[in-house]
C-alpha cells in the first residue's frame, strides 16, 4: 500500500473530521470528492503534515509517517503559497534543492510543454499558469505519490485534458499513485480508479469507480408514478413539472413496477442525489 489511513480524526471549532480510513494501492488514481467544507483539504493537509491529527494514524509507502518521506511526494495545492515576488526560475531553484531525485530534464520538458515563462514573476501570471507551474514542480522529482488539491481548477479545457493525460502516463509503470480532490467530477470519471466520497467529515462511500458507477442508475419517469413506494427504492430524486428524476440501486425492480427510462448515473448525479438524501 502506498497510503494507509486509519481512523484519522481532526477536531476544529465547528467541524470534525471523523475517523477517516481508506487506503491507496500502487498504480492507481484515487479521487476525493465532496462539497465545499466536506473535509477534503483537511485530509490532504493532514497527510502533508500541515495539520496535526487529533487521533488516528497513517502510513506512507508502508512506513510510519515522517518528514523525509515527503521527498517521495509531489503536491499541488488549490491556492498559491509561493512568494509572489519571485520568478519561476527562483522558485524552481528553491524546490529543486529540497528533493534528492530532482530531474532538471523532466522539469524543462514540462516547462516547454506548458509554455512556462521562467523569467517572469509569479504575480504576473494567471492562475492557470501558476497551476501549470506547480504541476511541473510536482512532476519533476520522480514522486511516487502525487497529492493534488483541486489541480484542475483554473485550467482551461485543453490544459485540463492534457493534465489528465499526463496523470495517466505518470501511473503507467504501476508503482506511482495519485490522490486528488476535485469538484470537477467529470475529470475523475475519465481517469480515477477509486473514489472516496466525503461529507461533513465522514466518508460516505469508498469504492472503485466502476463499481460505484455500475451500482447506481439514473431513472426518469412520469410525475404520477413518483409514489412513496418508488421513493423508498430511490437514493434521492427530484420531481419536475413533467416527471421525476431519481438515483437508485434498484432500477430493475422499479422497471417491473412502472415505466421508466434508465441510464448510467454520472459521478455528479451520484454525489448530488446521495447528498440530497443525506440532507433530508
Amino acid at each position, binding site marked *: 500500500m502506498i497510503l494507509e489511513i486509519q481512523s484519522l480524526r481532526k477536531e476544529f471549532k465547528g467541524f470534525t473530521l471523523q475517523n477517516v480510513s481508506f487506503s491507496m494501492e500502487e498504480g492507481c488514481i484515487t479521487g476525493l470528492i465532496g462539497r465545499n467544507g466536506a473535509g477534503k483539504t483537511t485530509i490532504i*493537509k493532514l497527510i*502533508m*503534515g*500541515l*495539520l*496535526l491529527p487529533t487521533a488516528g494514524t497513517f502510513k506512507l509507502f508502508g512506513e510510519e509517517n515522517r*518528514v*523525509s*518521506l*515527503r*521527498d517521495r511526494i509531489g*503536491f499541488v*495545492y488549490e*491556492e*498559491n*503559497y*509561493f*512568494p*509572489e*515576488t*519571485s520568478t519561476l526560475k*527562483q*522558485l524552481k*531553484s*528553491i*524546490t529543486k*534543492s*529540497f*528533493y534528492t531525485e530532482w530531474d532538471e530534464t523532466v522539469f524543462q520538458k514540462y516547462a516547454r510543454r506548458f509554455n512556462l515563462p521562467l523569467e517572469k514573476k509569479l504575480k504576473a501570471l494567471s492562475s492557470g499558469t501558476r497551476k501549470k507551474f506547480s504541476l511541473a514542480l510536482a512532476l519533476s522529482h520522480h514522486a511516487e505519490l502525487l497529492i493534488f488539491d483541486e489541480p484542475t481548477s483554473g485550467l482551461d479545457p485543453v490544459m485540463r485534458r492534457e493534465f489528465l493525460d499526463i496523470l495517466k502516463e505518470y501511473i503507467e509503470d504501476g508503482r506511482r499513485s495519485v490522490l486528488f480532490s476535485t469538484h470537477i467530477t467529470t475529470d475523475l470519471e475519465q481517469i480515477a480508479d477509486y473514489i472516496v466520497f466525503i461529507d461533513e467529515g465522514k466518508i460516505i462511500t469508498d469504492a472503485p469507480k466502476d463499481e460505484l458507477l455500475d451500482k447506481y442508475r439514473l431513472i426518469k419517469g412520469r410525475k404520477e408514478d413518483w409514489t412513496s413506494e418508488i421513493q423508498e427504492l430511490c437514493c434521492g430524486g427530484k420531481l419536475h413539472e413533467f416527471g421525476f428524476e431519481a438515483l437508485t440501486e434498484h432500477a430493475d425492480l422499479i422497471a417491473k413496477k412502472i415505466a421508466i427510462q434508465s441510464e448510467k448515473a454520472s459521478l455528479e448525479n451520484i454525489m448530488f442525489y446521495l447528498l440530497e438524501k443525506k440532507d433530508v
Partner: protein
Amino acid sequence: MFKVMKADLISIKRSIIIFLAYEITLVLIWNIFMVKDIPIIIIFLLTPMIPILNLYTMEMNAESDKILNSFPAKRSAIVAARYLHSIVFLILGFILGYVMIFLSRTIPVVVKPVAWPTYYKILVISLPELVMAGVFLPLYFFTGKYRIPGLTGITFFVIVFWGVSKCLKNLPDKEFVINSIMLVVATILFYVISYFVSVCIYRRRQFY
C-alpha cells in the same frame, strides 16, 4: 537548514533591499550632506527591525511556511534557519554600522581614527539585538503574528540596551572586558534557549 535559508532569502529579498537602502541612505546623509548630529543609537535601534521586517514580509508572501512545511524539511531546521538569519542580518547590520562610523569619522573630516575600544563597546552594547530576536521569534512562532511579538521584542531591546549601556559605562578596561564576556555568554545562552523553545512551539504549529 541552508536550503530553508535559501528559500527564505528569496522570499524576503524585498526586505533585504529595504535594509540595504536604509543603511546606504544613512551613509549618504552622514557623509555627503555632512549631517553628523543623527544619534548613533538610531542605527542600532533600527537595524533590529530587520529580522522583524523579514518575517513580516514572509508572512505577507502567500504564507510561504505552508510550502516549506510541505517540502521534506524538518521543522527544527526551519526554525534554525530563522535564528541563523537573524544573526546574519545582525552581523550585516554591525558591519554596515561600523563602515558608516569609520567613513563618517575618518574620511570626510580627516580626523584621528576612532580607537578600537570604541568599536568593541559598540559591539557589546549591540548584544540586546540578539535578545530582541530571541524574544521575538518564539512569540512569532507561537502566535503566527508579527505585531505584538515585534513590539515586545523592541521593548526588550530598549530595556536591555539601556541596562547594558549603564552596566558598561566608565568601567576600567579590565572590568569592561570581564563584564562584556559575561554579557556575551549570557546573551548567547539566552538565544540558544530561545531556539529550543521555538522548536517546541513550531513543532505543534498547524497551517490551516
